[in-house]
């Protein structure tokens, strides 16, 4: 594991203007807006504000994790991936740095929305529940890390921008992040429960209701993680294969 590489990879991620706009700005903005509109009720056994807070925190974290795709696509575009092949860096170390940085840059996104929840929206939770919500959210980000690495090695920078915008909207709407799944048409509710975004959001919310996502949720997340990781591995190998 290369600490210098990981540190610089994190710095690069945090310096990106896109990071502040989509990972920090948008989730906080949406949280404040939705909380003022729907914050007063309760949903799934927790207060509306807490429900929205967790939803928007995982929305930002998801964006942060998948944003690794933009860095990878940019590196491929300028030929950096080829330059890396002229170094002793093994493939597994490269993937570890990319995955590690994707997870780590998701943490500020979670923390910031939690802070806004506690300070601005008055969300009060026992310390254990804050920690459990955060911990489960991070674990449930695994498929999104794999998704980011796959997209980065598969797509060009030009395609990636608009595509990830559309993808996040679909994942957020169908996954019950922006509003509860039971407000979706019946036909789409089944789809929602097979999406990783649904289980990501549930992973963060369930601890607040004194529960967890259960083996079914874990299974869906694990399947997505394995499937996307296989696709990512294949795309990575094709990118770095010796001609």
């Amino acid at each position: 594991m290369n600490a210098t590489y990981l540190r610089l990879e994190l710095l690069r991620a945090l310096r990106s203007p896109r990071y502040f706009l989509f990972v920090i700005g948008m989730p906080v903005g949406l949280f404040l807006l939705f909380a003022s509109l729907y914050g007063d009720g309760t949903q799934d056994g927790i207060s509306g504000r807490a429900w929205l807070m967790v939803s928007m925190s995982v929305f930002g974290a998801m964006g942060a994790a998948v944003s690794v795709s933009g860095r990878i696509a940019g590196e491929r575009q300028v030929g950096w991936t080829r330059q890396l092949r002229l170094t002793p860096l093994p493939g597994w170390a490269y993937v570890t740095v990319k995955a590690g940085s994707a997870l780590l840059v998701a943490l500020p996104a979670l923390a910031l929305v939690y802070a806004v929840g506690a300070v601005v929206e008055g969300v009060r939770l026992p310390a254990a529940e804050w920690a459990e919500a955060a911990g489960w959210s991070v674990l449930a980000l695994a498929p999104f890390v794999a998704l980011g690495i796959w997209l980065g090695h598969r797509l060009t920078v030009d395609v990636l921008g608009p595509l990830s915008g559309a993808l996040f909207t679909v994942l957020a709407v169908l996954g019950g992040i922006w509003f509860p799944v039971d407000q979706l048409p019946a036909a789409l509710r089944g789809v929602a429960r097979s999406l990783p975004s649904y289980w990501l959001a549930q992973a963060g919310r369930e601890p607040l209701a004194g529960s967890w996502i259960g083996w079914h949720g874990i299974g869906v997340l694990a399947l997505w993680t394995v499937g996307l990781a296989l696709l990512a591995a294949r795309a990575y190998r094709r990118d770095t294969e010796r001609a």
Partner: protein
Amino acid sequence: MTQLLLAAGLRIRGLTKSYGPVRAVHGVDLDIVAGETVALLGPNGAGKSTTIDAVLGLSRPDAGEVAVFGRPPAEAVRAGLVGAMLQSGGLISEIGVRELVELAASLYPAPMPVDEVLDRADLTELADRRTTKLSGGQVQRVRFALALAPDPQLLVLDEPTAALDVEARRRFWASMRQLTAAGRTVLFATHHLEEADAYADRVVLLARGRVVADGPATAIKAVVGGRTVRFTLAGADLAALRRLPGVTAAEAHGDGVTLQSSDSDSTLRALLAAEPAARDVEVAGADLESAFLTLTGDPR
């Protein structure tokens, strides 16, 4: 042991590589002794980059062998023995010059100190600048710094001065001389004869995927640095023209005659005396392309 290791710099045997139907290199043999600076000279498409990719282990040869300090290329790269500046290749964004060099250095087992790299690549003043705020020549210097980061024994540079102005070129080669004075081996590709002549101990000429000449820069220059004499003459006797002083090759297309000459002054005097009917006489410095045609005797 050290002597043994030093003696074997780079060794290429029978390197052959095709891209689809295009044969990029065909049976290239090349030996470079440690400490030598060798120019790989040739026009575009001669096989320079293909040869370099094989030396770096970036492509797998169809046939032949490459050994870098007695090891397979990929192993030499992993040991940090090789630094390279590829022809294409930009810099990643959201990172400063020093940070990027730190990143590169962190990947090698025994890197050159970052400050030394910055100094040698003439980047000390630009150390805190973001990579996206650099000029073309500055980017080229950063890419050179990345090649230095492993503190390599072999530096491989594919057209390293392509984006540099005259002054930057001079400084680049001055820095290079310091490095080679410390016993490093350098292989650089160029299509400028002057650059090969000025900075290489030895020049290897590549044309259409083969080595067509290999020798000290002065010898190569005598071969490819000649002149072309063109004129119009009906019914030229090519055999007689080939016997004129300085003439190395003669050919005719209709009434148009072309002579390659290593001494155009003597050739001209003799030509005008022997063939008073020759008209429209032109003398031109031979460009590399036509020099290659002379050497390979195989008009494209």
